[in-house]
């Protein structure tokens, strides 16, 4: 184990996979000379040269699609999209091409590519630069979507994604890049399609992913002091979704709150809540509550932005209200 930042874990993983496999290469805007908007790829152009670390023009549809084609010929491109917001420029290549090619051609071609991209608000970047639209990709058969919340998972899931023969979207988060944690040394692969119980508990389950999973863990630990035992399920994989781990937890705790950074309606939390009510119906003592962003284009002004996004306090409130609704007394 080595303690490092989420950013470092991503960087080191890219480097390790490039060293391991000649067919792995990177492409994206400003990842080379500029060393990446968020410096994940710092130093890699120098080490591997422009063949393996390819700066692209501002042409998201073009270079994401180029990665699709390169992957069809057996390379393993790892694309950086500067933020998930810009993925909308390339979504046709992701949804109508990367996701479809394997099945639509009867299984003849695989598309072993990875798209890494950060989402998340809270940086005062305004309405078009603060979104969390991973649900768009999680919705699509043919894609896999993972969203690590810790440096260890960043390594484990990115490694798994690069080695996977399907197109995988790795959702990072601007607010997590500087967070630190222990990362297993050597080969470390986290299985795509599996959620993790990051803290065990008996009274209530909080389901979350990415930045919200870090908040959830923090809140759960804080609630220990109040003798409230919260279990935290970190989804890690949004597609496939590990429904059994979620429902098993709620069958045990009988209560659930979902928290996410995205807008409430039709967000990831909707699927989680729908899953719980179906898979743990007879165990559930209260409605599954969802904590999510206010449904407005995210404002720039700090005050408004803060009000619109979910924070630990919001999760605490929802937990307390859910416990209260069932007459829970610690």
């Amino acid at each position: 184990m080595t303690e490092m930042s989420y950013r470092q874990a991503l960087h080191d993983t890219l480097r390790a996979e490039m060293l391991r496999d000649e067919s792995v290469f990177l492409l994206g805007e400003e990842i080379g000379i500029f060393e990446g908007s968020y410096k994940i790829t710092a130093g890699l152009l120098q080490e591997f040269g422009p063949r393996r670390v390819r700066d692209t023009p501002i042409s998201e549809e073009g270079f994401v699609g180029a990665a699709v084609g390169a992957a069809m010929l057996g390379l393993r491109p790892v694309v950086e999209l500067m933020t998930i917001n810009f993925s909308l420029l390339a979504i046709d290549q992701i949804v109508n091409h990367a996701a479809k090619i394997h099945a639509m051609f009867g299984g003849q071609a695989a598309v072993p590519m990875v798209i890494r991209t950060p989402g998340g608000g809270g940086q005062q970047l305004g309405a078009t630069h603060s979104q969390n639209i991973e649900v768009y990709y999680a919705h699509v058969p043919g894609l896999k979507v993972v969203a690590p919340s810790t440096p260890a998972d960043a390594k484990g899931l990115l490694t798994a994604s690069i080695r996977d023969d399907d197109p995988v979207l790795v959702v990072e988060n601007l607010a997590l890049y500087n967070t630190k944690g222990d990362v297993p040394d050597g080969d470390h692969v986290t299985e795509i399609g599996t959620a993790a119980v990051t803290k065990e508990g008996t009274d209530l389950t909080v389901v979350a992913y990415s930045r919200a999973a870090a908040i959830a863990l923090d809140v759960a630990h804080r609630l220990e002091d109040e003798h409230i035992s919260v279990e935290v399920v970190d989804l890690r994989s949004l597609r496939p979704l590990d429904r059994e781990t979620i429902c098993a937890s709620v069958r045990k705790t009988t209560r659930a709150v979902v928290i996410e950074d995205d807008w409430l309606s039709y967000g990831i939390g909707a699927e989680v809540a729908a899953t719980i009510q179906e898979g743990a119906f007879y165990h559930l003592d209260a409605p599954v509550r969802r904590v999510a962003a206010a449904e407005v284009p995210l404002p720039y002004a700090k005050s408004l932005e803060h009000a619109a996004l979910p924070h630990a306090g919001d999760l605490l409130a929802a937990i307390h209200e859910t416990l209260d609704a069932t007459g829970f007394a610690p």
Partner: protein
Amino acid sequence: MAVPQKRSGRTPRARAATAPASAPSVRPGAPKRRRSGAATPSGPSGPPAPGTDASGDTGTIPSVSSGLAAEPPQVLADYYRQMVLVRVFEQRAAEMYTRAKIGGYCHLNLGEEATVVGLMAALERTDYLFTTYREHGYALCRGIDPGRVMAELFGKATGVSGGWGGSMHLFDTDARLLGGYGIVGGQIPPATGAALAIAYRSDPGDEAEAVMCLMGDGTTNIGAFHESLNLAAIWNLPIVYVVVNNGLGMGTTVQAASGEPDLYRRGGAYRIPGVRVDGDDVIAVRDAARQALHSARAERQPMLVEAVSSRLRGHSVVDPARYRSPEDTERARRLDPVPTLRSHLIETGILDLAAVTKIEAEVEDVVTAAVTFADESPPPAVADLFAHAYATPVPNTPHRLPADALMVSEP
């Protein structure tokens, strides 16, 4: 046999135009002009092809003959056979669509046979092909068994894509046909990426692999065209973009859709040399494509080829094309490359009527056999619905039919 009757001889049009005065915009080392291979220059004949506006090109457009005369008879016979194969296959496909053997959208290459055959003749076996939803002919001329193509149209398990793709989505790994694509322009970025993979792994050279990416005229107006050609230019990729200009999107003309209707010039925005060729002239098309492919494989100079032909029918099988003027329809018929080549072969004595008729009869049998094969093939098994969901299995992938409960919840 459905090939139209022999008609009075028509001099095949044959013309290749390079992007004009593009000397300063051609990268060092890139050829500044290309000609179709044929030796004897001759002026364009017949009405100007759709999208042609050569008025400003005085002195810069070399006009060359198609070079039909220089080809060995066996080659011409083979091209004719392929053109007839495409013609008959497509006519039969239309018929099968009407009989509900084929579903969905079905777009035919009728009228584009010379372009189809010429382009495919230019490719090496090691080259990769990306194409559109209008691609039956390309699959056939790439050597794929007509039965497997027809079976795909029928949605059968024996189809090239196992029945998963249908008419718009033919794919064959061995033939390096890397797909027909139904999203307009969607094939262009992946084709460009395939060329990137070639460049990533190997050096340029006369024997190097290259990619051919087909698209329609209307497709040059979509963003993916622009982004992809630019990538190919700055990365020096071994790719030839071919615009199959049949004059129409669905009902929209090139002139109405494109600010620069001389589509071969649109590579100029990326310093990609462009060449226009008569798409009704199989030899001219082949030679232009071959030269372009040579630049791509030997010099890593991406190229743009525009082949001008006509669509004989509607946009798809179900389109009656009422928006077309009688003159335009008549013009398309007059330019029809299949009877034109037939007449030429017979008139010049390259093949006699008996030989031509024999080819046509053989093709007829091949297509009939293809239909029988398709008809008798089994559909894909419903049990295999999730067989191609993912290439790498991982836990929790959904395998649920519409009425299945999500999971069992017990009271």
